[in-house]
């Protein structure tokens, strides 16, 4: 494989996907929110546990 072959593939696929977008379903955002809430709860419980045992 030489460099010009590499460049051809990179040019083609780079151009094809440079502005490639697709709208994700709403469930993904809902999952992000619930994931953030879960992490927040975990941090809170960890703080409570540390406070309780110190």
């Amino acid at each position, binding site marked *: *494989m*030489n460099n010009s*072959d590499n460049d*051809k*593939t*990179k040019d*083609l*696929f*780079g151009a*094809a*996907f440079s502005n*490639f*977008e*697709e*709208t*994700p*379903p709403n*469930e*993904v*955002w809902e*999952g*992000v*929110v619930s*994931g*953030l809430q879960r*992490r927040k709860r975990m941090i809170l419980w960890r703080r409570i546990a540390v406070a309780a045992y110190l």
Partner: protein
Amino acid sequence: MEEKQLLDGCLAGKRSAQKQLYERYAPNMFGVCLRYAAHRDMAEDMLQEGFIRVFTKLDSYRSEGSLEGWIRRIMVNTALEMLRKTDVLKYSVDIEMVQEYDSAQTDGFGKLSTAELLRNIQEMPAGFRAVFNLFAIEGYSHREIADMLQIAEGTSKSQYARSRAWLQKRIKPQLE
């Protein structure tokens, strides 16, 4: 809303700012995830986990590069990590599947639509798909890919050459 305001809102934990940032970048990042995933459900999981990381790590963003580039790196790393967890990043493709590479055949790639190219990328063996995406589309060097995937630089090069040969074999009948 300006990017700075949006960032400040997100750092303050405001859900409305987080949603705006998500809506601004999610379509583009979903496009990234779709290239790394074998199917749509997996890409949705990558996107969801990636954005959770974006919001929890946002305080480490230093505004040195573009925000989009920073988010994209998190998405790519999340995708690779998820592929590693599901144990599909093994380079175990049968050598028989890989034919000799013929550079003249790659000209035909340009005749396919983006959707058709995406479908072919998604159907690649996971190890090929990761290296192909990182090198041909994301623009990482083989040295960088070697570090990211914890493989030898030569392995990255050979996986890339094989991925092109694999694509060539797949795409040829679609052009006839």
